[in-house]
């Protein structure tokens, strides 16, 4: 029994000593169908952190959630608090749910098939810069079914 408790203690100590990791960003894509607006979708996982800001190119994005009312109307609402992820629950931005809305884009500067510089600003992990593909909105849902 004492042995078992000691073993658990060692494991906990090891876990506690693992240095903080930056969140891992997977399946990120910027859905852009022309004009000056786009929506960024991604999954962030594997860390405890809060997302303070996302900058796409030069433009600061806004965190929005698409919500559906009792009659079935959908609307976008700005988030009031920074979105949070934990090591247990990833942060999922997906069509019809959370998205980073980007406005004021210059249509001349990018189009589907290209990549764009995106900076994630985390409360604990700081700035994280990634190159993210620009996709046509028909591919925004992701996966092979389109």
């Amino acid at each position: 029994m004492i042995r078992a408790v000691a073993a658990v203690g060692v494991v906990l100590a090891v876990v506690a000593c693992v240095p903080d990791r930056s969140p891992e960003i997977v399946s990120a894509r910027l859905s852009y169908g022309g004009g000056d607006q786009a929506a960024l979708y991604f999954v962030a996982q594997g860390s405890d952190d809060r997302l303070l800001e996302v900058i796409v190119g030069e433009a600061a994005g806004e965190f929005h959630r698409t919500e559906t009312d009792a009659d079935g109307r959908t609307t976008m609402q700005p988030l009031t608090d920074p979105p949070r992820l934990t090591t247990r629950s990833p942060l999922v931005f997906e069509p019809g749910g959370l998205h980073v809305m980007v406005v004021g884009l210059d249509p001349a500067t990018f189009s589907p098939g290209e990549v764009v510089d995106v900076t994630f600003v985390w409360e604990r992990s700081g700035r994280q810069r990634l190159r993210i593909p620009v996709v046509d909105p028909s591919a925004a849902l992701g996966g092979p079914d389109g």
Partner: protein
Amino acid sequence: MPRRIHRHVLAVALLAASCAAPSPTGRLQGVVVEDPTPKPSFVLTDTSGERYDFAAETEGKLALLFFGYTNCPDICPVQLSQIAEVLRQMPDVAAHTEVVFVGVDWRRDTPEVIRAYLDRFDSRFVGLTGTAEELERAQVAAGVPPAVVDADTGVAHAGWVIAYAPDGMNHVIYPFGTRQSTLMNDLPVLVTMTGEDRR
């Protein structure tokens, strides 16, 4: 005993027949409407400023009706670009299909704004606008909750595509999140639903 066998044979034969020729509705993968409703009648203004009578203009065609707004980066572009992509891949279906986008945000969805917006997806898409009252009437006629356009909270609108087959009936809807493969399956089925088979 022979009679019993006979009945089994009949049942198997019926089953085989129903497998060989399933009803068109049975082949649809969208959300099938249990009691199909007739095409609504409403008149709005198209992007060239002409009056557009929805029922008359889409008669005998597959009509895909969507109430959205142009300042919407999340739901509307996904729905419209999926339809555009499927029609690009299926020119025969496209020839018998009319896609009608109604811009519910009367504050900014002018005919010019709607035209520029739809041209990003497919220049054949019809864009409609109207006064707040006309838009509300059209939505009520189509059986969707009328959009709420609010200066503070933005635009709340029905996010699904309503499909009227050439027979003039709404047999199926496509809520947000519908996959492109579903539309690829359904649109060729819908264009064949002319109502001839039931006459």
